[in-house]
């Protein structure tokens, strides 16, 4: 409904004045017996369109005065009772209309205030509000709805509400409505549910939708409240990812604690056990055994220290990594080989390094450590190979470099390809090493965002340890 207070309503004031003037002229010219003053009622009634609430009473008062003026100008004569009755009925009608118009204007004012208030509420509401006629046409589309669906109200009003839905609901919507109107069986009406909406640009938007049915003067109207839950969805996804990561970390920590406590206890068993035999050896005068047992105790203590050092090193990796830099892989390999020069010579191992190694992104010290460990293992597990040989190279992957250390040594049974990376796992029962090396290597590679694995056809077929590192980006190169 249009605003009754608009400036365009001044025509009513003019019309009302004209009517008063004409009526007065008519009343003066016509014999008094005619109901010449009666058109004044029209002038008062025009107050319906005048945006000033006292107007009807002012008009009625002016008209009453003019009516009495004419009566004073022209004495009524013998038919005075007709004239007086005539004027009285006119005045009563005028004032009755004035009261009615005044009430109407008050009522309009209240309605328009309410409407303004509701409009303000609708537009400041954070949720999208839409009303839809029974035939599916959009009748109301508030500002939040404009924002959520990315289209102005002007574009949405009068359109079928199905334009806000993605396929296949868009096509099925007419059927949902038909079925609901026929059977009362709702698809979303009266139920809140999370659905997908579609923006004007075709992008999907997750929404929380509640639809209610309202009966307006016998007409069925649907009101929909729409909440954009993109943020909620994203937060939930982030939360789930975090929980999963946390659970993984927790499980890892549990395994770590279990393994560490078990393996740290082992040297203690040795120390405790042999301490018990020392006294007897001393009593028996068996100094040979006494010395041997003391050596075992000392060995266990050393081993314990080694285990603790390795554990400390392992725990440091997760926390202490320098920001990644651009590393020419060739230099890193050279450093690693230099530090292992003695062992490589002693083993008579031929080392072949591919030319043109790429530049990778990482922490120089840590990546050197990775290569040292892998090369050292290759040298150590050469087996009976008469012509030991190690190849070091790289190949391009998707946004990463795969670096490999391949040997023709003793190889690893595919059953143990995963096990060897476990903490304190050793496939050979030599006393060298604590079984931390590969766990350490894996951790370093993972901290760099890479993967580590082994390829080997089995015993006697050599093995190839591969790991990935991110290729150098401009950011890390600078």
């Amino acid at each position, binding site marked *: 409904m249009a605003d009754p207070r608009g400036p365009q309503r001044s025509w009513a004031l003019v019309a009302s004045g004209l009517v008063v003037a004409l009526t007065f002229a008519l009343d003066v010219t016509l014999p008094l017996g005619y109901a010449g003053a009666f058109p004044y009622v029209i002038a008062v009634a025009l107050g319906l369109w005048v945006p000033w609430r006292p107007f009807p009473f002012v008009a009625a008062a002016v008209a009453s005065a003019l009516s009495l003026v004419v009566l004073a100008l022209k004495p009524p004569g013998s038919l005075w009772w007709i004239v007086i009755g005539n004027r009285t009925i006119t005045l009563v009608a005028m004032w009755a209309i004035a009261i009615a118009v005044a009430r109407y204007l008050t009522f309009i004012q209240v309605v328009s205030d309410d409407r303004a208030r509701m409009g303000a509420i609708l537009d400041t509401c954070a949720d999208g509000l839409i009303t839809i006629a029974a035939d599916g046409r959009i009748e109301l589309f508030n500002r939040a709805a404009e924002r959520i669906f990315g289209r102005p109200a002007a574009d949405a009003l009068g359109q079928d509400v199905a334009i806000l839905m993605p396929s296949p609901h868009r096509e099925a919507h007419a059927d949902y409505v038909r079925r609901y109107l026929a059977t009362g069986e709702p698809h979303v009406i009266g139920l809140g549910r999370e659905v997908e909406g579609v923006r004007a640009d075709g992008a999907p938007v997750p929404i929380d939708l509640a639809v209610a049915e309202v009966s307006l003067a016998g007409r069925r109207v649907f009101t929909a409240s729409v909440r954009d839950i993109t943020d909620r969805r994203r937060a939930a996804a982030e939360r789930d990812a975090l929980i999963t990561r946390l659970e993984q970390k927790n499980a890892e920590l549990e395994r770590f604690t279990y393994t560490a406590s*078990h393996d740290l206890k082992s040297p203690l068993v040795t120390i405790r056990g042999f301490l018990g035999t020392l006294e007897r050896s001393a009593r028996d005068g068996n100094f040979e055994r006494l010395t041997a047992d003391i050596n075992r105790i000392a060995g266990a203590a050393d081993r314990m220290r080694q285990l603790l050092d390795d554990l400390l090193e392992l725990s440091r990796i997760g926390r202490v990594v320098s920001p990644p830099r651009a590393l020419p892989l060739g230099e890193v390999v050279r450093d690693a080989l230099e530090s292992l020069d003695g062992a490589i010579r002693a083993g008579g191992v031929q080392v072949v390094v591919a030319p043109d190694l790429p530049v990778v992104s990482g922490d120089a010290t840590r990546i050197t450590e990775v290569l040292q460990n892998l090369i050292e293992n290759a040298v150590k597990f050469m087996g009976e190979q008469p012509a030991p040989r190690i190849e070091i190279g790289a190949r391009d992957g998707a946004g990463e470099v795969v670096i490999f250390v391949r040997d023709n040594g003793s190889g690893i049974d595919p059953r143990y390809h995963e096990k060897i990376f476990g903490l304190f796992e050793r496939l050979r*029962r030599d006393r060298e090493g604590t079984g931390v090396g590969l766990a350490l290597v894996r951790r370093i590679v993972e901290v760099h965002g890479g993967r580590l694995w082994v390829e080997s056809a089995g015993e006697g077929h050599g093995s190839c340890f591969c790991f990935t590192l991110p290729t150098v980006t401009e950011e890390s190169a600078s």
Partner: protein
Amino acid sequence: MSDRPLEILFVEDDDDHAELVMRTLVEHRVGNKITRVTDGQAALDAIAARPPDVVLLDLRLPLVDGLDVLRAIKGDPALHRIPVVVLTTSEAESDIARAYDLNANAYVVKPVEFQAFVDLMRDLGFFWLAWNRNPGTRS
């Protein structure tokens, strides 16, 4: 009662622990033949070659680990009567539960109280001998 010495298969990768346990067994004359192997695969090979009277089994072993050895013994109808004593540093409830789930006959945590350990080995030996001499008496 004749105290027939036992043939024991001892699966242990740690030399020092092996030395301690072997000394105790020999000293108390439990078992006159102790075969020691250092990993799970070797243990399975040794059992296949000649089933021992008792298996003394560490859990954390290189290659095939102790629980896998236990599973293989107890899952084989020809071998499941061989008593298996798990001897390990692990006190983790999960390990104890898993070992007993796999029908381990005893679970002993190192460091052992040596006398208790020796008694246990003796009892298991008698149990085994009685069972295998008179299979019909099994209730």
